[in-house]
């Protein structure tokens, strides 16, 4: 057995994980960075995105590409709006006290999850990908006639998976432009640096907080819509991505967007590669324990300040 094609496959699977994880973790990191809030319900916003994507695609019917496109727009908007409502009705009222926010978002986690169980049920349901050509992974071989290409049997990926990676890169660049090159980004960064001074300069901090919380949840939902043609939508699907995003956010340094993306790629790739050779459970244990090492050597994360 040639090893290299398996490594390529592992890398592609890992990059798909990394793409989705980066989007989700950037949402978590943004909320933590600007609002200093740990959103434990983030995984449920992810799950809600996937379930709504199924719902929209199911209601619309028609060509899978159109249904998927509609889901890609509608699901994150709905989830974002819901998150903004949660921010205004719950988090604002406890004035973003760190511990009480954690408890409240744990509560929110169960409310969203269990309401989904009551309405959507415990089945896993798929969404059809907009396009899905199979692409075999080529590899080289030394033959009598010199170097030649061949396709190891059974190893392949799909065009959709590659598109997820590409789309996530575009979105992450978009967020970077939003944060560094636009007025809204400037307002968010100002609020992050000093909430009180920002307010004194006439920034409506309440509105910024609601927006950031909605944006963070919307990103999680977007990540879920992208993954739902590959994995199915299920009411418990938010759990593992939440833990992985926590790992990514700690390793990247709490509140640092660049660090978050780097950490997502690291974790995603190692998860993909380890999963090729070992069981997923061992892959998860290793990823979890990587946090320990980062903690011992760099308590503030890779790109964290302080």
């Amino acid at each position, binding site marked *: 057995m040639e090893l290299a094609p398996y490594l390529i496959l592992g890398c592609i699977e890992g990059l798909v994980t990394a793409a989705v994880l980066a989007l989700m973790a950037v949402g978590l990191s943004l909320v*933590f960075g600007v609002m200093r809030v*740990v959103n434990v319900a983030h995984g449920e916003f992810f799950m809600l995105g996937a379930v709504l994507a199924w719902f929209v695609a199911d209601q619309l019917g028609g060509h899978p590409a159109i249904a998927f496109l509609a889901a890609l727009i509608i699901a994150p908007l709905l989830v974002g709006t819901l998150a903004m409502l949660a921010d205004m009705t*719950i988090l604002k*009222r*406890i004035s973003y006290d*760190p*511990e*009480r926010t*954690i*408890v*409240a978002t*744990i*509560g*929110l*986690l*169960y*409310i*969203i*999850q*269990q*309401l989904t*169980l*009551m309405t959507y049920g415990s089945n896993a349901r798929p969404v059809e990908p907009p396009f899905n050509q199979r692409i075999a992974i080529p590899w080289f071989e030394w033959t009598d006639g010199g170097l030649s290409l061949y396709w190891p049997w059974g190893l392949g990926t799909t065009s959709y998976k590659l598109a997820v990676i590409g789309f996530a890169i575009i979105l992450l660049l978009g967020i970077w432009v939003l944060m560094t090159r636009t007025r809204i980004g400037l307002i968010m960064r100002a609020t992050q640096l000093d909430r009180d001074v920002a307010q004194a300069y006439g920034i409506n901090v309440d509105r910024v907080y609601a927006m950031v919380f909605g944006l963070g949840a919307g990103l999680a939902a977007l990540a879920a819509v992208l993954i739902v043609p590959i994995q199915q939508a299920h009411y418990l699907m938010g*759990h593992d991505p939440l*833990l992985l995003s*926590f*790992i990514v*956010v*700690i390793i990247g340094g*709490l509140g640092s967007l660049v660090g978050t993306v780097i950490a997502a790629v690291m974790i995603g790739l190692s998860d993909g590669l380890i999963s090729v050779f070992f*069981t997923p*459970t*061992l892959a*998860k*244990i290793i990823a*979890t*324990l990587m*946090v*320990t090492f980062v*903690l*011992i050597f760099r*308590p503030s994360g890779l790109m964290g300040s302080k």
Partner: protein
Amino acid sequence: MMMSDSKKSVVFHLGFLALLFLLQFILPAYHHGNLARIMVLATYAMGYNILFGYTGLLSLGHAMFFAAGMYGMGLTMTHLGWTAGPGMLAGLLAGVLVSAGIGFLALRTSGVSFMIVTLMFAQAGFLTILYFGEWTRGDEGFVIRQADRVFAGIDLSDPTYRYLAALLLFGICLMLTIRLMQSRFGHVLIAIRENEERTQMLGYDVHFHKWMAVIASGTMAAVAGAAYALLFGYAGATFASVQYSIFPLLWVLLGGAGTALGPFIGTLFMFYLIDLSSSLTTAYMLIAGVALVLLTLFLPQGLVGEWRRKMMPWLT
């Protein structure tokens, strides 16, 4: 004659234990069994309360301590053929070791990172139990045979002895918590909760005290885990999952963080709330979610906390 506040508190809690002792004679079988379970789970919550309520450290990984005790006992009994006594000791020791190790590492961080890191460790622990499914039987868990659940000639699977054993465990841990919190050590923990920098400035070794608090808290949780497996005859990976880390937080918050009796009251209420709602719907955790949100919004002190504020300021 006027009693000092700390004495008043001790007498009050002893009275409460006496009430629990008497309750076994009048309770119907179903609630009798429930109360035994609640007392063991409340012991777990009291362990959690030492760290969260009194020291002010929010951990989301206590299930790993509970499971350390449960598996420390269950595995040695099942695979090494140990009896209940040494098995309980193995559970306690597992709790001390795990909490000392995890505490040492996790206390390098503080605040939000501490919470996330404990959550991660607990997740790694949970996955490890699944990974070694050959011995732990993973999610399915394993039953501890009735013949093994005998301690000093007493059959602990018998409801009456089970209730008494649970009460004994609960009573010892309750009085220990009160003693601990009335001691100098406990005052330092409370000082850390109120203002960590100031406590440090006053010359206390904050890091050491926090570490000891993690160990005390984790060990009490582990003993509760071992007792749970022994009294109810089952150990499974569910008890190591995130949900079992969130439960003690919920119970302590509902009952009142930083009160000795809060964990019991919180466990009692939540147990019956979930018991009632699970007969209505499979989505019974919805109740827990709604309770958590309402508690943070309207009752941040918890039931016993409010009660102490209004009527009994001397309560520990």
